[in-house]
């Protein structure tokens, strides 16, 4: 393993730095708070000649994703980044990128959707794309942003997958917060990601292909079935790629990160930066003798159902924290966890807490409160509760 290089950087800089080392052929992006620093850093790398990437300073997120689709279909390694309403503006093409099986990697700096206008973190932007056919990874900190971006390239481009990946980081909390990040040497990253092997590139004029045909009731369904299969393959491929990444970095990734789970009876499940805060509370409660634990979700799409079942079956209670809502239905992560536990031999008591919308702070007191509700068995499976909300 190469010698360690640790730098104090923001999540946005970690994202841009990983991109710099990956050095995609094309980056098309439009600035939007809080994603803007990623684009700014990258534009500077390009301007300074530190990367050979061609950057397309598009006029909207819609065109960002459209250009990325064009570039990736042409045979280039292409990346982009966005947030919130920018992602929502891309929505149509987000689906197209996945359905064309283009191995694009995109940073999503999570931010609340309008209205009212809000620039702070929640997961409603990414959750609105959860059925788009993209792989979704959620990062707890800047280190994970850096690592998972590099890992995402290999996952996306794997021949059994060929699907785009969204690497999510919490807006401002991670994107603008400075933390130490251990960086890998350029050549190690370059060797890890390797060269893109384009499949059916448009620029191969000797083998002309047609992208984006009209696909009616006699074939469309079959093409969707292929996408379903590719998503299933992610469950096989991800551990292999994670293992290879471990070899170069010493850092282990999986679908989920169990924290003090061995004998835990009361378990919290969450996405993103809140997991770090939960770890702090778990430590604190453990010191007081409570058997609590955390199951951090790294991969939300495809949803690692078997892993969830393995870790949660037989626990006394499971508390699911969602930083987004599904109006008129259960919150997305909770719904998925609840559904996964339907077949469990021994189902835990379940509780759903929505928190942090529009950047509302989530602190250890609130997490402790949620754990206490679980430990007092005051959870009602069909009753959504809210952390940090004024009644």
């Amino acid at each position: 393993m190469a010698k360690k290089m640790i730098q104090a950087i923001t999540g946005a800089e970690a994202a841009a730095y990983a991109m710099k080392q990956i050095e995609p052929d094309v980056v098309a992006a439009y600035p939007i708070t809080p994603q803007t620093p990623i684009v700014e850093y990258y534009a500077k790398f390009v301007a300074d000649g530190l990367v050979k990437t061609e950057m397309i300073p598009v006029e909207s997120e819609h065109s960002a994703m459209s250009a990325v689709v064009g570039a990736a279909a042409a045979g280039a390694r292409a990346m982009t980044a966005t947030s919130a309403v920018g992602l929502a503006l891309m929505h149509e093409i987000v689906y197209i990128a996945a359905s064309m099986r283009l191995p694009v990697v995109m940073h999503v700096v999570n931010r609340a959707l309008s209205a009212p206008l809000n620039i702070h973190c929640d997961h409603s932007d990414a959750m609105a794309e959860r059925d788009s056919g993209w792989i979704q990874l959620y990062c707890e900190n800047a280190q994970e942003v850096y690592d998972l971006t590099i890992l995402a390239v290999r996952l996306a481009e794997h021949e059994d997958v060929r699907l785009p990946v969204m690497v999510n980081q919490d807006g401002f909390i991670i994107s603008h917060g400075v933390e130490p990040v251990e960086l890998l040497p350029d050549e190690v990253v370059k060797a890890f990601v390797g060269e893109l092997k384009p499949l059916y590139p448009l620029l191969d004029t000797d083998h002309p292909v047609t992208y984006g045909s009209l696909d009616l009731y006699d074939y469309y369904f079959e093409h969707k079935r292929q996408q379903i299969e590719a998503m299933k393959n992610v469950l096989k491929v991800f551990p292999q790629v994670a293992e290879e990444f471990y070899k170069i970095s010493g850092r282990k990734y999986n679908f989920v990160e169990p924290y003090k789970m061995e004998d835990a009876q009361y378990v919290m499940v969450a996405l993103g930066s809140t997991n770090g805060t939960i770890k702090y509370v778990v430590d604190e409660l453990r010191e007081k003798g409570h058997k609590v634990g955390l199951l951090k979700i790294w991969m939300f799409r495809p949803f690692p159902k078997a892993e969830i079942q393995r870790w949660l079956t037989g626990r006394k209670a499971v508390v699911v924290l969602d930083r987004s809502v599904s109006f008129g239905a259960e919150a997305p992560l909770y719904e998925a966890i609840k559904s996964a536990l339907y077949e469990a031999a021994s189902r835990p008591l379940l509780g759903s807490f929505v928190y942090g919308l529009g950047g509302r702070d989530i602190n250890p007191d609130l997490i402790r409160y949620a754990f206490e509700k679980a430990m007092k068995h005051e959870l009602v499976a069909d009753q959504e509760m809210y952390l940090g909300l004024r009644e």
Partner: protein
Amino acid sequence: MPLPIKKLAEVFTNKEIGITQGHRMCPGCAAPMVVKMVLMTAKALGYEPVVGLATGCLEVSTTVFPYTAWSVPYIHNAFENVAATISGVETAYRALKKAGKIPADKKYAFFAFAGDGGTYDIGLQSLSGALERGHKFIYVLYDNEGYMNTGNQRSGSTPPGADTTTAPVGKQIPGKLQLKKNIVEIVAGHENVYAATAVPAEPMDLMSKVEKALAFDGPAFLAILSPCVRFWRMDESKSVDITKLAVETKYWPLYEVERGVYRITRKPSSFKPVSEFVKMQGRFRLVLERPDADQIIKQLQDYVDRRWERLLALEQATKDKPIR
């Protein structure tokens, strides 16, 4: 200068044009003629065309899975983003060329084809962005003056008086009231561009503009009048003739704007009244039956007259004064 038609026939005896038979456009549709003329010009000059298409008639009718009527690389992404998509393709080309990953000797030509809906309306932003960024691509608008793919709805290009399903000729309102957008001037306003109009009935003019577009160091735009025989409600064998009439009536003047310099490429010695163009098409039938039909036609005549005078003046004023 473009090859004469007989010479083109020789060149393409055993050579792929790029669009093939077996597409499902209406009989007599002008759009496939336009595509043929554009791609033949590029190929005859040794270019390798790569084609992007906006959603529309041409798109759905040429690529019904598992069939494709394209024998050149082709991508359709969505309705409103063909310019952004082809800018991604073109940028990928530059990046990969720089990296030595594609043969250096290949001459690529990047085309974006779109109808008027995908250009004047929903695709305008994407087009403007790609023009401003200066990608080297050729945008070919096949203008059939409405959303014909979905059954004749009004677009920003539909002329006043035309009967469409979303601006129908009713008892109160005589169809579409507004004039067309001047898309060529909108494009020309991006300054570092080559923009031109053309018609299938003037193939040498059309193909020489394709040649100029290919040679132009920056984005190029061709606005080609492309009749929809079905919803213009006209004889399907007359789709070429009517575009000649469009030029002769000043309805579709032939000109080009190169970095702000205007040049009229066809100046007929005498003009026909615009009513001749209008009366050839059933889409104007209902408006022509109205008591105020003469007035509506007169307004259109005044407009095309003034626009022609203005074009002459612009040609004079911008001579040898490229804006960039």
